[in-house]
């Protein structure tokens, strides 16, 4: 008998977390765990690859298409490989009128990547996103779970230099 070992699987800690998440929903409604589990596998793998999606489909006992259609609908799942740090900057009105245009232009120049691109050193990927619910503290971006607010050109330099270390 030939058994194919899945190329992607949760680490033991994440497997435990995934199983705990499944308990949040009534019997038979485990598909509800799809978004949280996609976050979990992306946190582990860095991006949401087709293999990762297939693994989650298998894990939840749903069809792969049910995962693909969800992963492509929401903006937080990276469907292509990304750099070490994904900088998601808010491009919506309130941040833009507070100097966002200049700050983000500087950010892209400093990193050497444009919207949707990854820097040559593979350290940074830049993604424009819509409103991050931090309008009074803008301009802002987030890197993984951390928010960076009240951005200025000087502050961007500091943050990026620190992350390069």
């Amino acid at each position: 008998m030939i058994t194919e070992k899945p190329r992607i699987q949760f680490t033991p800690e994440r497997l435990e977390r995934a199983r705990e998440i499944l308990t949040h929903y009534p019997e038979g409604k485990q598909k509800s765990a799809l978004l949280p589990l996609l976050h979990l596998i992306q946190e582990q793998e860095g991006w949401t690859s087709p293999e990762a999606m297939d693994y989650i489909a298998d894990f939840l006992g749903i069809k792969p298409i049910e995962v693909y259609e969800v992963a492509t609908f929401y903006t937080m799942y990276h469907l292509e490989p990304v750099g070490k740090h994904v900088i998601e900057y808010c491009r919506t009105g309130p941040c833009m009128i507070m100097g966002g245009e200049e700050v983000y232009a500087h950010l892209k120049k400093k990193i050497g990547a444009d919207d949707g691109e990854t820097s040559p050193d593979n350290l940074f990927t830049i993604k424009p996103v819509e409103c991050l619910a931090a309008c009074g503290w803008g301009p802002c971006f987030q890197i993984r779970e951390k928010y960076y607010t009240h951005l200025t050109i000087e502050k961007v330099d500091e943050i990026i230099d620190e992350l390069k270390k």
Partner: protein
Amino acid sequence: MSSERLKILTANADIPGIETFEVYRKHGGYTAVEKAVKTMTPDAVVEEVKKSGVRGRGGAGFPMGMKWSFLAKPEGVPRYLVCNGDESEPGTFKDHWLMKTIPHLLIEGMIVSSFALGANTSYIYVRGELMYVVKILEKAIAEAKAAGFLGKNILGSGYDLELYVQPGGGAYICGEETALLESLEGKRGNPRNKPPFPAVKGLYQCPTVVNNVESISTTPWIVNNGGEAYAAVGIGRSTGTKLISASGHLKKPGVYEIPLGITVNEFIYSDEWCGGIRDGHHLKAVVAGGSSVPILPAALLLKTANGEDRLMTYESLADGGFATGTMLGSGGFIAMDETSCIVRNTWNFSRFYHHESCGQCSPCREGTGWMEKVLHRIEHGHGSMHDIDLLVDVSKKIEGNTICPLGDAAAWPVASAIRHFRDEFEWHIKFPQEATRPGAVYRGHMELA
């Protein structure tokens, strides 16, 4: 001044450690749960919320008690309370602030509200970008559970409640309650056709109430002090206090808890609140209730068309209808000074709605794209006079013709910008070279404040 103001949500916000159960409890936290589950019936809690007159704080402003009273209660079918923490309306960040600052207030509100509705499993759906807030809430839930305020047989009352936090995946549309429920079921966030309403068929086709974070957070105070005390604050049908997310060119942007009924003028210029417009600048326009509501020029924002002081209430901001008024909406208050380009901002918002349209209804899916394209060409110096009427035409064809309100939300900012700032659009078209110079801003006959 500020010390005299009644703070219903934020009274304890500045206390160090208020995010922990211990400190929150020490300052009177969870007394509403004790009072509700030990001394009140679920219907009595519903009655107090009805009396309070509190209206949905997510933007729609529908009376919360009435929404609760629609909940179907068929025998043997579970009921759900789902908190809408998807806060994504541009200009709005009060729920984000409230959840990260006083997480236990929402947890306490979820417990008393779930008790009132007879829900034994409840969810807080938080936009996925706020994963750090998800973790703050999960910690708060674990603390509350360890203290006996969640789980089986809460405080010996016989009432059981499990509370979970669910992260979204990044989609504005999931702030619409039926899209949120689809998302919570692990699907794309496509809004559902109504009826049936969630109160009859919601999560897993069971009766469900969906309420905003701020709305639910009012319930501990209402339980403790009574609905009438809540209704005593405010004016008319705008009862209680409201969190306003103030952003843009203000001296002190931030989240403020205001008693509904102060004047817009006071909110902008008083040191108690926003402290006025940044130095050396003047107010040009405001989007008063999140990006979806009509933009108003300064003069019409501060005074109604009849010359009366405009108040921070649902009714006063709407005075004059869409011809001369706007909406309180989510309380996302975006102030723009004379350096702001209305065309550029309108294009920015239309790009937002195009990006966020779920694609289900063609008027919204196609119309938002057209509006973005036309606004892009006007802003970049390639527009024609015909484009202005074309935008109005497209916006009218989206409005009212979609399953959910995203279509309206996309149409209103464009229609209102043209209604009040038509000369600025015309200037972009007539003088493209001037208008597309970096930093160029229209300096026409604009009345500033």
